[in-house]
């Protein structure tokens, strides 16, 4: 038998009709995640064509992008950014009722960012194909599921047929070996990787992250890594499932129980790249060299260790990026004054991320003049964090503790920064205007974000790892 990569195994198990020179493969989709922003036009298409949604049982919807993160008022009214946002949410509620889709909406104890709740519910499982009208669907690759973002036309295709027309992508192995230094985490690692391979280094590829540094990561850290695959241009990032994966998933609501669980795990253990299988391209990263890493420009490939000098612009576009950021070539990002700190998003809003930020903040205060928002990824994360008292740590430090949602990562719900403000953000994109027109984004880990909030300047979290008495 030919040796196969993890990607090839998952791909081949989902081919309904193989690809030919003239036609792409028809690929079966196990799980379709839906949210309010990229689905309304697809539901309209179904309606216009008189079609049903083929597999409501393989479709899971939630509200996250346009939703306010401040609570409803006494009358139950939620503070939407505008009437259109409110109407968009209402439209998804109507669409889900009409087409029989399970919506984790406002009244659900499980609502949250689509890429946070999929795994939490156990809807995300190893070996699956998962799509969503959202480029950060790559997150679910942490479980060994082939997961990628699609456009709204394709959302309609999956709703109607549970399939997509796809050309087989190329494979890129990113081997990460060695030990991450103390105080350096998964976010630093993925920013470092994107800085190395470039913002388009993964275009046309599915990435498989492998090596002992990847195996040592927790599931939440693996999700952070896979989440940002798209920031290097790769539609999907995969990590082979292992005991860490199975332990994290066990007992979650949508997973099989008892003997069926054991059978599933036995099956999932085969989801590994065979010895001798080849990739189209391979890259090696030394984990021991990674330091607290931040971005200095206007795309995630412009990333560097915070204590290293910002490189000189090589062309007009890079110069424009440095000018926009008010970053100075030759000077490190560390020490740059901060206006806003955001902890949240599908990259870093899980319980371990909040613990990491709280660890730095406990007994300390957010610096005067700095605004800090902490937005949990889901209602489950919020409950767990509140049970541990993390919300008290945040509010005592002077940060705002919000209702789950995408919030300031995409800044379409009213949570945004003002022109010129510098945001240290645990999200995934530092594009011009991403967090508000004229706002400047520096991507960072939760620990770096919290340390920067305390210092009022971009700060090395390792200087804040010792807890002070609360």
């Amino acid at each position: 038998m030919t040796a196969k990569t993890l990607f090839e195994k998952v791909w081949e198990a989902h081919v309904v009709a193989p690809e030919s020179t003239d036609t792409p493969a028809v690929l079966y989709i196990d799980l379709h995640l839906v949210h309010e922003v990229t689905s309304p036009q697809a539901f309209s298409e179904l309606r216009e064509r008189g079609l049903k949604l083929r597999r409501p049982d393989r479709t899971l919807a939630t509200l996250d992008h346009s939703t306010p993160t401040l609570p409803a008022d006494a009358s139950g009214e939620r503070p939407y950014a505008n009437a259109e946002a409110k109407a968009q949410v209402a439209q998804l509620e109507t669409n889900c009722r009409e087409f029989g889709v399970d919506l984790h909406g406002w009244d659900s104890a499980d609502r949250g960012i689509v890429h946070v709740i999929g795994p939490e519910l156990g809807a995300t499982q190893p070996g699956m194909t998962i799509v969503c009208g959202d480029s950060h669907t790559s997150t679910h690759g942490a479980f060994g599921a082939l997961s990628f973002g699609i456009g709204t036309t394709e959302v309609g295709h999956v709703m109607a047929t549970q399939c997509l027309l796809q050309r087989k992508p190329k494979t890129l192995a990113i081997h990460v070996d060695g030990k991450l230094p103390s105080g350096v985490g998964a976010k630093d690692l993925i920013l470092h990787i994107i800085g190395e391979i470039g913002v388009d280094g993964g275009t046309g590829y599915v990435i498989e992250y492998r090596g002992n540094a990847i195996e040592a990561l927790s599931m939440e850290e693996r999700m952070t890594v896979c989440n940002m695959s798209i920031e290097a241009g790769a539609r999907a990032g995969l990590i082979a499932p292992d005991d860490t994966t199975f332990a994290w998933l066990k007992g979650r609501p949508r997973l099989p129980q008892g003997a069926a669980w054991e059978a599933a795990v036995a099956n999932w253990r085969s989801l590994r790249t065979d010895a001798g299988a080849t990739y189209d391209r391979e890259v090696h990263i030394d984990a021991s060299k990674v330091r607290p890493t931040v971005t200095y420009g206007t795309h995630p490939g412009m990333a560097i260790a915070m204590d290293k000098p910002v490189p000189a612009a090589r062309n007009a576009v890079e110069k424009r990026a440095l000018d926009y950021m008010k970053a100075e070539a030759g000077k490190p990002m560390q020490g740059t004054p901060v206006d806003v700190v955001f902890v949240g998003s599908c990259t870093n809003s899980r319980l371990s991320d909040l613990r990491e930020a709280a660890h730095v903040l406990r007994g300390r205060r957010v610096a005067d003049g700095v605004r800090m928002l902490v937005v949990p990824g889901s209602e489950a994360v919020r409950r767990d964090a509140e049970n541990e008292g993390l919300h008290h740590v945040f509010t005592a430090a002077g940060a705002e503790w919000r209702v789950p949602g995408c919030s300031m990562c995409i800044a379409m719900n009213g949570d945004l920064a003002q022109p010129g403000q510098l945001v240290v953000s645990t999200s995934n994109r530092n594009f011009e205007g991403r967090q508000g027109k004229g706002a400047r984004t520096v991507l960072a880990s939760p620990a770096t974000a919290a340390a920067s909030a305390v210092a009022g300047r971009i700060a090395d979290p390792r200087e804040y790892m010792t807890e002070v008495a609360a």
Partner: protein
Amino acid sequence: MRPVTRLHSRTAVLADENIDTDRIIPARFLTTTERAGLGKLCFNDWRYQTDGSDNPAFPLNQPKAKGCSILVAGRNFGCGSSREHAPWALLDYGIHAVLCSEIADIFRNNALKNGLLAIVLDEAEHRWLLANPGIELTIDVREQVIALPDGGHIRFQLEPFARHCLLNGVDQLGYLQQHNDAITAYEQRVEIAA
């Protein structure tokens, strides 16, 4: 989708590399539930000044760029978010082709499904087009060739199925539905095994 066989236009150039879909249409405009009418928001934060007037520094606001439906853009156009609002906005704004040495995967898929010609060229040809804005090109989808004003031409590759759909106005959802029996058979095989 209407068939797209040929496109004739002068070129406009946006030379910046890595123009992301947030720049093509900022996220705050994604609260719409429609596809139509997004052209006025295309490149919003680059194209308009704070008072709402046209930003003269935005290349597509210059008189010579008016009416151009072929955009030559810097490398890695359309990176970032999967929003199909980006090709919808470009088409409504009047851009019917993007020529580039590299185009982000999701954007390219979305564009071609809407009849926006997302065409990848080799680097030398791309450099030449970036350096020569305003020239008249004719893109021939059937022959996969771009005719230059001096009689020269540039060859390009399109994924064969995308090309077939463009030329014949194929409804891809309709094509997928023709596989209904195979899809049902797949579901039965996999779900019984599980």
